[in-house]
């Protein structure tokens, strides 16, 4: 399918569509980056359970991907992004973000270093014009490769065992590292990365490998109850992991219509990413000024009594003064806790005397709850198996 005829099918299908559509018994789809993506295949609870107790497979193809190659690739990425791309070793992956001139976040994403002069950016939104504009003065080639790469996310405590059974030795693969493996005369890349805060891997293929690989993986994973999962289950897992999503937990600056909606790395808890010593990067001067002056907003993790999810709820200081808003919330089955991620005005970031007002709909009548919140470190869910190398065998 060529992108030029996409208007004929308003949502594109991923290379795994033949398998995901067959498995999607609810026929529940949603749009993601111009693709149709499964929200739930049949039972969101079982899909969540597969993430935390077995092995789950999520179709990552709609993730936007850019390949950066050329002599100045590292220098280019250092100017573009907040972290030091030159320090990322070949075969490594890191979580990073980038801002506009004013130091406001455009997107976050993962950066994969495939070679000394060969990187891959994976992110939520599209940025080709910005990436190209940023390339002036650098000897780099920037290419969007979203359609050229098919990807799956295999997550869960049994994921390493499934890969072993599928013939891929990932015992030595540490978190945020990747390696290539032979597959049916070709090659695939496996990175130990993911969006669930659990043991997990992301599998990078060419589109023509997609269906044979899916079949191979599901056959090998059957003893561990491997199952495809939709975005609903993943969203619950990512909230437990405390991860943020562009356009859900913050508005990217180039899409924000209201001037005050843009957020800086400090305001999203990403200030730790900034490498002040690597030289100039876009937004550096604005961020230095913000560092000196202080930020207006903060992103915090909170724990709320009870089990009513606080999605979209307003936070109040002293039950009266509006202090912020919940951007993501869920009752966590793994932690048995009512969790939320919230944007609050920086002066309330310590969450002293902070309250959340939840409107709980009970058979067409709202029960209004005003509950005290407790500041909680992210990640909320942080199991040792996420980091263990070699990974646990089950």
């Amino acid at each position, binding site marked *: 399918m060529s992108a030029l005829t996409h208007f004929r099918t308003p949502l594109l299908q991923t290379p795994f569509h033949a398998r995901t559509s067959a498995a999607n018994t609810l026929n529940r789809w949603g749009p993601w980056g111009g693709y149709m993506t499964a929200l739930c295949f049949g039972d969101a609870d079982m899909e969540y359970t597969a993430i935390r107790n077995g092995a789950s497979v999520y179709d990552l193809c709609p993730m936007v991907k850019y390949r950066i190659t050329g002599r100045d690739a590292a*220098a280019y990425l250092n*100017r*573009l992004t907040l972290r030091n791309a030159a320090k990322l070793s070949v075969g490594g992956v890191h979580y990073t973000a980038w801002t*506009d*001139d004013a130091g406001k976040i455009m997107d976050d994403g993962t950066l994969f270093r495939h070679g000394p002069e060969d990187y891959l950016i994976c992110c939520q939104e599209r940025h080709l014009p*910005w990436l190209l*504009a*940023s390339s*002036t*003065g*650098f000897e780099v080639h920037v290419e969007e490769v979203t359609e050229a790469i098919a990807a799956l996310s295999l997550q869960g405590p049994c994921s390493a065992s499934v890969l072993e059974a599928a013939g891929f030795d990932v015992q030595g693969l540490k978190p945020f590292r990747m390696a290539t493996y032979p597959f049916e005369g070709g090659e695939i890349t496996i990175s130990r990365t993911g969006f669930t805060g659990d043991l997990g891997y992301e599998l990078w293929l060419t589109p023509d490998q997609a269906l044979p690989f899916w079949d191979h993986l599901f056959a090998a994973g059957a003893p561990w109850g491997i199952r495809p999962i939709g975005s609903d289950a993943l969203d619950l897992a990512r909230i437990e992991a405390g991860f943020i999503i562009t356009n859900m937990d913050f508005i990217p600056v180039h899409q924000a219509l209201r001037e005050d909606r843009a957020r800086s790395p400090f305001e999203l808890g990403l200030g730790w990413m900034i490498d002040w010593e690597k*030289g*100039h990067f*876009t*937004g*550096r*001067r604005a961020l230095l000024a913000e560092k000196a002056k202080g930020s207006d907003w903060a992103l915090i993790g909170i724990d709320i009594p009870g089990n009513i999810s606080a999605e979209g709820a307003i936070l109040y200081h002293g039950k009266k003064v509006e202090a912020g808003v919940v951007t993501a919330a869920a009752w966590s089955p793994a932690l048995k806790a009512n969790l939320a991620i919230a944007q609050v005005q920086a002066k309330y970031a310590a969450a002293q005397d902070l309250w959340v007002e939840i409107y709980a709909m009970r058979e067409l009548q709202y029960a209004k709850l005003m509950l005290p919140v407790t500041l909680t470190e992210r990640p909320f869910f942080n199991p040792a198996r996420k980091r263990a190398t070699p990974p646990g065998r089950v």
Partner: protein
Amino acid sequence: MPTPFSERGLDVLVIGGGVNGLACATRLAQKGRKVVLLEAAATTGGGAGEREFAPQYRAPALAHLTQGLDDRLVAAMDLQRHGLSFHAPLVTTVLSGDFAPLAVTAGKTSGHDAQGWAELHGKLSAFARVLAPFRQMRPLRLAGETRYFELAKRGLGIRSLGKADFREFLRMVLIDVYDVAEDELSDARLKALLCFDATLGAWLGPRSPNSLILYLDRLARGASPLLPKGGMAALAGAMSRAAEAAGVEIRCNASVERLLIEGDQAVGVRLQGGEALRARLVVSAINPRTTFQKLVGAADLDAGFAQKIDHIRSRGAAAKLHLALSAAPNFRGADLQSRLVIAPSAAAIERSFNAVKYGEVPAEPVMEVLLPTAFEQGLAPSGHHILSAIVQFAPHAPKAGLEAARAEMLERSLAVLEAQAPGLRASVLHAEMLMPQDIEARFGMVGGNWHHGELAVEQMLFNRPTFAAAQYAAPLPGLWLAGAGSHPGGGINGAAGWNAAEAILQAKARTTAKEGALA
């Protein structure tokens, strides 16, 4: 106690010894700064200079007139004492086809439309007078600034036009000059003159939107074109002497290769040949695009800013013609001690602009002609003459290639001149045609544009050269802009350089006040 001058490090390095660089350097030196000015060429002056284009024939290097220097620098630099004086304001003689030559001096002319011209000139001059103060200030910003007094003062200036004229001002300020000519004038020669002067040095035609504001800007610089006694080189010479008198050290043949940046701060420059010079501030009075792309480099700039700099529109459409003539030309009896404008009609100016849109040389270029030898001795052997002409419009991207376009431009210009001054061609001894590309190569004007970035309404005031650098401070700490690429543009005027110096001094004053308050 202040540190003795000799032991102090250098305060300011000014890059570029054109009118704006000299003005900025002088102002800063007058205020006690230790300033070194670096000029890449062998002499200062930039576009205001003189050059021997053929043995024994010297012509203005580029600009041959000024519409007036900024009055602040004329006074503060005491240019008169340093030898600057002007010939009487020049009369303009319009040569339009077969019509009789028409002499125009500011609002005064003859012929059936003299009254109409006087009225239009009066009205436009009133508009120009209320706009002129904006030329002498750091462009305002709507947010984050508290210069309400300055804004109110200038706003009141516009309101002082009175209700009817204020309404008329709003109607006209962004209009195209062709419509104004059609509405208000009936003499084809005057229509042509108005349209010619509005578009001189611009990349737009009389029918392009917003072309009238360029005419208002011209009037805001001065009512009549001026020729310095001794030519444009004399103007540059007087300014250089004034700069040196103020304590500026001028270094010619010092071409800056790179800005030195340490700890995200401009700390000096590296010259061609490797010599490094350090100073507290670096002021670039050369082209903004050259400054950021060549001297700074994209890596030290934010990507959004670098893109904006890349997008500065800077197409030059004016070519410069120099002729050595063995005899005085006769432009149908026109006074040779005048500025000759050859333009058949307003429509003909638009037509000659049409060609450059498609990379072609216009069939009948329009031009401003000056005979420096009619005013000065010694520029050419006795009895011989120099003709200097700005010829419009020249293709900035010639389809036929530069050499072919240059030859065609010369040929068609000579044909236009011959038609107005029969016998001129036979007296041509040497000819030099500088296309926009030549002007870029010789004077570092990107695209060959005289204003170092097109002077057009969307590139004026707080958008010149681009929003984030419009107040003379570059986003890179320690680097300032002072050239024609900044507000209010070029035209051998010096306001940009002077404004930049004022902005630097004010910024210093603000920092000092803040430090004082903290202490």
